[in-house]
C-alpha cells in the first residue's frame, strides 16, 4: 500500500495482535475468581435463608420460590437505583452478574437510563436490552426440551 508505515497484511496484523496481548496486563484471575466465588456463594446463602424463612411460615413450594425471588429482585432493583449495585459489581464480578440479582440489575439499569427518552420509547423499550437474549434463548431451549420430553417419555 502506498506510503504504508504499519504492516497491515494478515501476518502483520497477527504480529501486532501478539504485541498488544503481551503489553496488555492480565486481570488478576485468581483474586477475581475468589471474589466471585465468595460473593456468589453469599448471595445464594441469602437465598437459602429466605427460602427456609418463608417455608417455616407455611407457604407452599411455589409461593416460597416466588417470595424469595421477590426479595432478591426487589433488593437488586433498589441497589441499582441507588447506584450501589454497579459499585458492588466492580468488586464482585460474576458473583453479582450470575445470580438472579444480576438479571434484575440489568433490567433496572437499562430502564433507568432509558427514561430520558420517555416512558414508552425509552424506559419501556430498553428494559430488556441486556436481559432479552436470556429470555429469548431460555424460552426457546425450554420449548425444545418440552418437545423432546414429549416424544421420549
Amino acid at each position, binding site marked *: 500500500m502506498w506510503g504504508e508505515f504499519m504492516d497491515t497484511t494478515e501476518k502483520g496484523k497477527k504480529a501486532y495482535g501478539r504485541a498488544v496481548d503481551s503489553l496488555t496486563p492480565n486481570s488478576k*484471575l485468581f483474586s477475581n*475468581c475468589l*471474589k*466471585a*466465588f465468595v*460473593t*456468589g*456463594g*453469599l*448471595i*445464594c*446463602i441469602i*437465598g*437459602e435463608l*429466605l*427460602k427456609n424463612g418463608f417455608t417455616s411460615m407455611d407457604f407452599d413450594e411455589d409461593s416460597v*420460590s*416466588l417470595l424469595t*425471588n421477590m426479595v*432478591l*429482585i426487589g433488593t*437488586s*432493583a433498589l441497589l*441499582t*437505583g441507588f*447506584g450501589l449495585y454497579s459499585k458492588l459489581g466492580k468488586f464482585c464480578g*460474576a458473583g453479582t*452478574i*450470575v*445470580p*438472579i440479582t444480576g*438479571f*434484575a440489575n440489568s*433490567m*433496572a439499569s*437499562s*430502564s*433507568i437510563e*432509558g*427514561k*430520558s427518552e420517555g416512558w414508552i420509547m425509552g424506559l419501556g423499550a430498553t*428494559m430488556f436490552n*441486556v*436481559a432479552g*437474549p*436470556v*429470555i429469548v*434463548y*431460555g*424460552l426457546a*431451549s*425450554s*420449548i*425444545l*426440551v*418440552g*418437545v*423432546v*420430553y*414429549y416424544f421420549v417419555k
Partner: protein
Amino acid sequence: MKGSDKVDYLKVFVTGGIICAIAQILIDKTKLTSARILVFYVVIGCLLGGIGLYEHIESFGGAGATVPLTGFGYTLAKGVKEEVDSIGLLGAFTGGLKASAGGISVAVLFSLLAAVLFNPKSK
C-alpha cells in the same frame, strides 16, 4: 437439626460459588461478554434440567443451584415437563413462561418502579 442446617449452608455456598467462579473465568479468559455467558448459563441450566441432571445439583446445593441463572433455566425445564405431563405436546409452549411468570413479572415491576423513582447517576 442445627448441625445439619449448617452443613447444608456450606453446600449452598460452595455450589453457588463454583457456578459464579466458572463464569468469572469465562469473563476474564475469553472474549465472551457477560451477556453471552448468561445466555449460555440459562440454556445449559435448561438442558441439564431437561435430562434430569440439574435436580441432583439442586438437591445437593439448594439455593446455590436455584439462585444463579442456571437455576432459571432449570425452572423453565421443570415447568415445561410438568405442562407436557398434564396437557401433552402443547405444554412445551406454555410450561416455560408459566413457571417463570412470577419471577419475570416481579423483575418487570421492580425495574419499572426503580426507573420511575430513580435517576441515572454518573460514576
